[in-house]
């Protein structure tokens, strides 16, 4: 299994509070991704990173920001959490672009009350 961890694994927070989710990899892969999973939608890309300090938006980026100061860590921040951001969040990594398969972390379940 690819060395990907996510923290926290579960979080309950209140509307309006900031939340940061962390993805940590030990594979030294260049590309990292954040997805959210909601019923009826599968997984949808929020943001991705193609190197340290290099990030880009995905399909559902509104309300989220990301940062990557080290190869191994990719942070997802909800500046002011809303109930619509209640979801399961997955981090993924891949070594290169193109044909490389993405491997997923264990997920973080976030509940915004």
């Amino acid at each position: 299994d690819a060395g990907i961890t996510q923290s926290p694994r579960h979080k309950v927070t209140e509307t309006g509070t900031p939340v940061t989710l962390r993805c940590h990899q030990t594979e030294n892969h260049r590309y990292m991704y954040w997805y959210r999973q909601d019923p009826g939608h599968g997984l949808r890309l929020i943001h991705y990173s193609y190197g340290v300090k290099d990030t880009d938006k995905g399909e559902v980026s509104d309300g989220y920001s990301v940062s990557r100061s080290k190869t191994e860590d990719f942070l997802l921040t909800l500046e002011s959490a809303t109930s619509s951001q209640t979801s399961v969040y997955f981090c993924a990594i891949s070594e290169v672009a193109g044909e490389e398969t993405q491997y997923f972390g264990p997920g973080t379940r976030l509940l915004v009350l």
Partner: protein
Amino acid sequence: AQTVTQSQPEMSVQEAETVTLSCTYDTSESDYYLFWYKQPPSRQMILVIRQEAYKQQNATENRFSVNFQKAAKSFSLKISDSQLGDAAMYFCAYRSGGNKLVFGAGTILRVKS
């Protein structure tokens, strides 16, 4: 934009029997990759099989095989000799030459003993 459609929200199969999960996609590109991921109750996303669009030969991984029909934009997954451990949500996913995976909504597979 590319879309991926899984028209079967839920499927059932008897243990040791064969089941086929359907997936269609929409794209104007000629070079891309297709994937099936399995998500058991643990929520871990597990790669099952992948197919490169330029390859005419259908991919096979042990009991899992695909029927890739490029002209029809169809990518079905066949599971032979179904086992109780195959019970999971299955996601079809598409990726072009870039990094972004587009997922279908998923199919829940139930295996009956």
